[in-house]
């Protein structure tokens, strides 16, 4: 890191967090976030139109906050990076429209980047504002949130990322939200399930591990499915209630959480071993889940893998990871994007930068 490293501002609006981050090279200078999570609570999940409206209102205040925190002038920026996708289309468009106008107003190069690869890029940064470090590549990356569940093989952060698998139905974070509702717990479900699971027996109920049977593994070795698990939990709870019995919430929560953590980490570790990659990186909001982190550490240790988990503030959606990826693209000599890219809700991970 030196003063000659590029000063990059990152804008992230793919889901319900409006994130604006500023980095210089690999050093984190600001990570401002406004969340519309509370507005979604009454709906039990992220409502795209509610999220998009919140982005429009939060964008300039969050931008100001980031600049103030970093003590940086807009005129000093070397580049702007923005999430082009994947994510909620209407939400992405707010960030894309704003980033383009800002780039034109400042005559600053603009980099349209991939949100999922951004999650991997977060590992470059030190949440405490330290110097940061290069990404150890290759690495397997498991990215799990309310919006995505993806397993990546990252050979080169700015040049070679492969999608190994992803969820074929619900994201893992969504499953937490839905099971929390079944158990009468509020949104968002992740921290609620984590709390409810304390003292519960993770082996009390054997809930299904999606796409883990031998026949499923042939076609979906690295894919995930949480829809069946969610239904299995609901059915189990309903049968208890219909029989007039009380529901052992701690056991259900712990058993459900175990099923999710088990299938996530099993597939991620299998990918490391299959591909001969000695590293596993976690990202996304579900990393906040204590059991997911614990199981990842146990299994990584057992398999002789290095486990990397960025600070939670860099795991949930944020603009700093977008800025970090943008800075890597600048430092690798990549040309800026043109101004004609769009918001692509299904942008593939192979498209690290949209031209």
């Amino acid at each position, binding site marked *: 890191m030196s003063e000659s490293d590029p000063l990059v501002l990152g804008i992230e609006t793919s889901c319900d967090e409006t994130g604006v981050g500023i980095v210089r090279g690999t050093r984190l200078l600001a990570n401002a976030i406004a969340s519309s999570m509370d507005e979604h609570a009454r709906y039990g999940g992220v409502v795209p139109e509610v999220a998009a*409206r919140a982005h429009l209102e939060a964008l300039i205040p969050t931008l100001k906050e980031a600049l103030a925190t970093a003590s940086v002038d807009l005129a000093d920026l070397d580049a702007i990076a923005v999430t082009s996708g994947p994510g909620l289309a*209407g939400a992405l468009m707010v960030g894309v429209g704003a980033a383009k106008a800002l780039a034109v107003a400042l005559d600053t190069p603009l980099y349209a980047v991939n949100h999922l690869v951004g999650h991997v890029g977060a590992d470059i940064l030190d949440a405490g504002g330290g110097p940061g470090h290069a990404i150890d590549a290759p690495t397997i990356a498991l990215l799990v949130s309310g919006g995505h569940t993806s397993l990546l093989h990252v050979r080169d952060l700015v040049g070679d990322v492969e999608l190994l698998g992803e969820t074929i139905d619900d994201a893992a974070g969504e499953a937490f939200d839905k099971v929390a509702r079944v158990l009468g717990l509020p949104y968002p479900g992740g921290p609620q399930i984590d709390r409810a699971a304390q003292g519960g027996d993770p082996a009390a109920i054997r809930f299904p591990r999606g796409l883990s049977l031998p026949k499923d593994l042939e076609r979906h070795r690295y894919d995930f499915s949480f829809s069946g698990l969610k239904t299995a939990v609901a059915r189990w709870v309903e049968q208890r209630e219909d029989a007039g019995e009380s529901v052992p919430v701690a056991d259900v929560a712990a058993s459900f959480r175990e099923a999710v953590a088990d299938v996530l980490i099993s597939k991620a570790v299998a990918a490391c071993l299959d591909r001969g990659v000695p590293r596993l990186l976690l990202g996304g909001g579900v990393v906040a889940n204590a059991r997911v982190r614990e199981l990842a550490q146990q299994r990584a240790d057992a398999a002789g893998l290095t486990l990397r988990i960025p600070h939670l503030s860099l795991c949930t959606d944020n603009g700093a990871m977008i800025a970090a990826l943008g800075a890597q693209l600048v430092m690798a000599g990549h040309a800026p994007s043109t101004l004609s890219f769009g918001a692509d809700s299904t942008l593939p991970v192979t498209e690290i930068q949209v031209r």
Partner: protein
Amino acid sequence: MLLAIDTSAGTSVAVVDGGRVLAEVGSAETMRHAEVVGDAIAEALAVSGIPIAAFSGVAAGMGPGPFTGLRVGIAAARAFAFGAGKPVLPLASHDALAFERYRAGHAGPLLVVTDARRREVYWSLYGGVDEFGIPLRSGGPGLSRPDELPHRDVPRFDAAACSAGSLGVLAGLTHLHQRAFAKDEALYLRSPDVTPSNGPKRVTG
């Protein structure tokens, strides 16, 4: 000197100097605002040849209009204004449509009507213009089914798209004569279209 941006229908960007439109570019496409808006701003600036430092503000069309596209223009207007260190001058897009109609010779009451999709329309009612030619809105903007549209006795103007040139000229007049701008908020006129959940649905019969 103003930059004006409106995405209440297509994407329209203009540079105006008082009553003169120096550049106006855009696209009538109603689904590609995010793709188009950046090039449109850059092109309007290039065509006009006006440096950013010479601008005194950014006029923003606040709608009403279909949300997803409308937001792109407002986000762009706010971000450009922030980047350039200039104020945002928000106006209802319908006011610019009425302004255009009155400038073309219309006199007296006017009902501006635009497509709101989902078999509904947006409308605004005007009584006429003030001494400077600024339209005087007396009703709306509102949302209605076409067959329930109010003020049917008033001459009706069905508009397809709002011109950023007109928006910019109107913003200039509004500023010059110290008339009120709109509130700096998007005119959605519809709730976010969801009903709060009433607990989980049963999965077993």
